[in-house]
Structures are given as C-alpha cells and as structure tokens.
C-alpha cells in the first residue's frame, strides 16, 4: 500500500490498485470534505452519498465507509461528503437545503466529469434523501437509492421531539422525559435543540419546509430503490410516496433490522461491522446496486 500526501488531500493506494482519497471540493469558496473510494479497473458506476444530519450522520458514518469499500469490488466509485457546516467541512456556514444540495451536486458533477461513461447513482440516507432526490434530478442520474428516507420535514421534527423524551434513558439526565422533551422544544424554537449531545438546528430543518420528497420525483429513466429499516411491511408514508411518483420505477426493499438513529451506539460494545442492522442493510443494498449497474453494462 502506498500513501500520497499533498496540499489538496491524501490518497492511499491498495496493492490491488484501489484508491481511497480524502480531500476537499470547493463550493462557493468554501470547503466540502469528501472521501472517495475508486476501484482499480474499469469504473462501471459512480455513487454520490448524501448523508443524514446530526446524530444520524455520526451514527451511520462507518456503515457508509463499509458500503464504499464493498462497492469498489464491483467497479463502483463511491464518494461520501460532509455538508458545509457539518463534520470536517467548512465551520462557519449552517447547513441548509440549498447549501446541502449545492455540496452534493458539486460532488456528483465532479465524479461525472471524471468518469463520463459511468452510470450515475445518488444515495440519500434519512434527511439526505431530500437532498439526493434533488441532486439526482439536477445531474440526471440513472438511479436513486434511498435509505429509510425522510419524506416530510415536519413529521421528522415531530419524530425528533418524541426521541427527546427518551434522552433520560440515553443520557442519564436527572429530569423526567416530559421535562427533557419540553426543554428540547424550547431550545429548538430558540435555534438549536440538544438531542443526546447532537445539534438539531432549526434553520437546517426549516429550510426543507415545503419541499417534501414527493415533490422531487426522479426524471427521465431514473429508477428508485427504497430501503426501509425495521418493518415487515411498507410504511404508509412510503406507499404515498410511491403513489405520488406514479410512472417512476420504484422498488421497495424491507430490511428486518431496525436502526435507532439518533441513539445509534458508538463502537464501545461491538464494532459497526458486526451490528445486525449494518450487516442487514449492506447485504440488502450491495447486490441491488451491483445489479443496477450490471444490467446497464449488459
């Protein structure tokens, strides 16, 4: 394995020629952090991953790394980003819908320019789905993959309010669940709610108001694969989405294992590689993405 460092980033090349590059994309003069995994041989497809936010971003991070590493064996480049205002990206900008879409679009367009003959896939996780659907439209992607997508931000905010009640269990706060939930609501109304030490930024979530997923249908021949975690039948909200996207090929995939999202544990008890939900999601997703690009190659 070789490591190449310069002022733009750092790249490690494995013995089989696969590369993993960490670096920056510049959008509006600001830094967007990315890690890009590229296979050694022919590139069949490029996948741009639009992550979730807050605790769901941190909790799902390693799973995305593992996905990228698995996909490279199938000739697929995977690029993961941190939106500006999150993670390692620009510090002094709040992530809002427009900046998140701009960041992911720039990342995807850059890949598309580098690999013009490859199929383009966009994957969105949770709130990232609201971003991914717009990016897929803008770059005219071939495939859109959604991991347990948020379909409507208002419902998502309500969901976070319910999660706030569970903080007593998760953090050992002395107050009761209702009190903690009330504090969370007050803090969120004032700008930033505290959910187990993760920022729930009102301006970020409110920027998605009026932009439900149903209003970002894929264009042209773009197909959709929707993965739902932890239920044995399709959630009514996803049924509605499929109905709203009439004419679009939407395949649903039910993953039995549930994710606990904002409360996803750190790896102090078990590595992410062994978490049942991560194992199940990767087992479900990788063959689907492989098949998507295989059929194109054929």
């Amino acid at each position, binding site marked *: *394995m070789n*490591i190449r*460092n310069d*002022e*733009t*980033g*750092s*790249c*490690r090349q494995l013995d089989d020629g696969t590369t*993993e590059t*960490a*670096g920056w994309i510049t959008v*509006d*003069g*600001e*830094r967007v*952090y990315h*890690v890009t995994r590229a296979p050694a041989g022919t590139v069949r497809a490029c996948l741009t991953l639009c992550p979730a936010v*807050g605790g769901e*971003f*941190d*909790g799902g*991070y*390693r799973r995305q*790394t593992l996905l990228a590493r698995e996909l490279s064996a199938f000739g697929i480049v995977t690029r993961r980003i*941190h939106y*500006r205002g*999150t*993670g*390692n990206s*620009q*510090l*002094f*900008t*709040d992530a809002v819908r427009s*900046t998140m879409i701009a960041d992911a679009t720039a990342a995807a367009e850059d890949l598309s320019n580098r690999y013009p003959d490859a199929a383009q896939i966009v994957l969105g996780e949770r709130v990232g789905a609201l971003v991914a659907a717009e990016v897929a439209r803008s770059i005219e992607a071939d495939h859109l993959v959604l991991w347990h997508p948020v379909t409507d931000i208002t419902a998502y905010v309500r969901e976070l309010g319910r999660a706030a009640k569970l903080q007593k269990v998760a*953090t*050992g*706060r*002395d107050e009761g669940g209702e009190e903690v939930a009330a504090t969370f609501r007050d803090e969120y109304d004032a*700008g*930033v709610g*505290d959910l187990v*030490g*993760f*920022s729930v*930024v*009102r*301006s970020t979530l409110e920027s998605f108001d009026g932009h439900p997923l149903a209003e970002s249908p894929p264009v042209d021949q773009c197909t959709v694969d929707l993965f739902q975690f932890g239920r044995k039948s399709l959630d009514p909200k996803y049924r509605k989405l499929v109905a709203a996207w009439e004419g679009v090929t939407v395949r649903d995939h039910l993953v039995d294992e549930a994710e606990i999202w904002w409360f*996803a*544990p*750190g*790896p*102090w*008890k*078990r*590595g*992410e*590689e*062994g978490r049942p939900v991560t194992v199940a999601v990767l087992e479900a997703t990788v063959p689907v993405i492989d098949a998507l690009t295989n059929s194109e190659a054929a």
Partner: protein
Amino acid sequence: MSTDTTPAPGETTEPGAARDVPEEVPRWFRAGDETALSILTRPIAPARDVGVIFLNGGHGGSSAGKNRVHTRMADDLARRGFHSLRVEWHGIGDSTGEIDEFVMDDPFVDEALGAVQVLRDEGISRVAIYGECFGARTAVVCQDRIPELCAMLLVTLVIRDGALSEQTPQRVVSELDTGDFVKRLDRVRHLGDPEKRALYIRLIRSKSKQMLTTAKLRVGGSKLEPWVSPQVVAGLDDLGERQIPVHLVYGTSYWDPHTGDFVKIRDALKPLGHDSITAEILDEMIAGYRTLHVQDRLVPLVGEWMDGAVPR
C-alpha cells in the same frame, strides 16, 4: 475570560462570507497493521511549533468528533497558534481495521505514535495531547515514547482496567467486602447459561485478583484501591517526574461513574503530588460529550488550558 472564537452549532454566517479559516489537510498514516485517517489543521495565528493530537473516546463518527466538537476545538487552537491533528482510531470512520470493544488496558498506541510521526513530518517539534476517555488512557500509556511531549489535557481518564462493559461488574465486586461476596455466591443462578457462567467466573477472578492486590498494596504501605490501573499510576507518575503539565478533567452524572472512582482514590494517588499535575471536576455530563452545553464549555477550556500550559 473566554476567548472562544468558534461558532456554536446553529450560529449562521452567509455562505462564502469572508472569515479566516485555518488550512486543513487530510493525512492517511500507518498505524501497526492498519491505516488511519486524520485531519491536520495549521495555525492562523503565528505558529508556536506545537501540535495538539486529539485522541478520541469510544464514540464513533469521524475525525470531526461527536457533533464536530473536535473540528471546533481544532479551529480554536489554530487561532491560538497551534497545529492539531484529529485521528480516527482503527475501525472508526475511514480508518481500516475493526474494533470489538475498547479495552482500557489495551490502548491503541500504534495510532497515537503514528499521529506523532505525522506532526514530525510536518516539521513540528513539540507535541501536546488532548485525550478523552479511552484516548486519555492511550495518552498516559504511550507518553514515555514521545520525547517531544509538552502538555496533556485528559478528560475522563478511566482509572480501572478492562473493557467498558466490565466496569460495572468490577465496581460491584470492589464494593462488596469478602464476607458479603462469599454470601452472595449462594444466590448464583442459571449456571447452564454460558454467558451467565462466564460473568460469574469473571467476577470471582476479579475479586480474587483484588484481594491479592490489596494485600500487596498494604504490605508496600500504599492506601490505593486494588482496582486502580497500574498503567494510570505509572503513567501519571512518569509525567510528573518529567514535569510535563497535565490537567485531568472529570464531569458529574450517574452515567459517568469514572468521576466517583477518581474521587475515591484522589488522596491516595501519589502522582497527584507532582505540582505539574492538576485536576478539576466540572458539574457537567462530560463523558461522551452528552450535551451541547458541555461541548460549548470544553472548546474554550481546551484552548485556554493549552495557552497557559505551553508558552509561546
């Protein structure tokens, strides 16, 4: 006076607005059999020739730290003239390898020493460490292999050995005197269950070890509790002998029993007699950065302490 200049999450600035940001570059580096990813941040203020290494606790995510708290700390340090390097342990973020469990007395020394080499390659001649929980233990264990070490800020340094999941059974064992412990063996049930059986065996071994260690300590004239890690005692003592400034920070909450451990042994912990080692307990849920408030408090605390401990 707080001189934190980093924005709290939610503080809005227009995209593209002119504001100095420090240069940052990702750096892969070798760590034993694995390859770790890190982010190097360069100072905005005149450089002090000191690099601060961030060694994480057991939480996941990326080198940004939980809720990007380490990104904010790195930015604050850059404004004070420090380089810094935030490291992803093997099995975390984008680093290679897998983690089963963080075991306190089996720290990730390869990553810590690899991180020091990244700073050396950058031409930096002095190294400071900010370590949290498991990262704090790693710092204490590998300090004697870092000749250029000049300061160490340790948040929630875990005093006991073993995996985090073993800490509660350990406490149960240590809080029962031998007579009570033997009496409770009568209540042992479900010996057919392999997990239960393994737990009972661990408890009995732990109690036996504690009894032996207590006897040895008392013969040597020490009042230290038997569950105190020899790594912690030796590491802190060596740091004290080297007169390297060390600051221990603990928080309070029932979720955070490490503070209770520290309070119990503080008076008997000889290394704390060194003038260069200080400690404070903040009334916050520090372990695991469990609130935004504690994150907002720690960002300037780290910068201010490093400012004072490492003169220009």
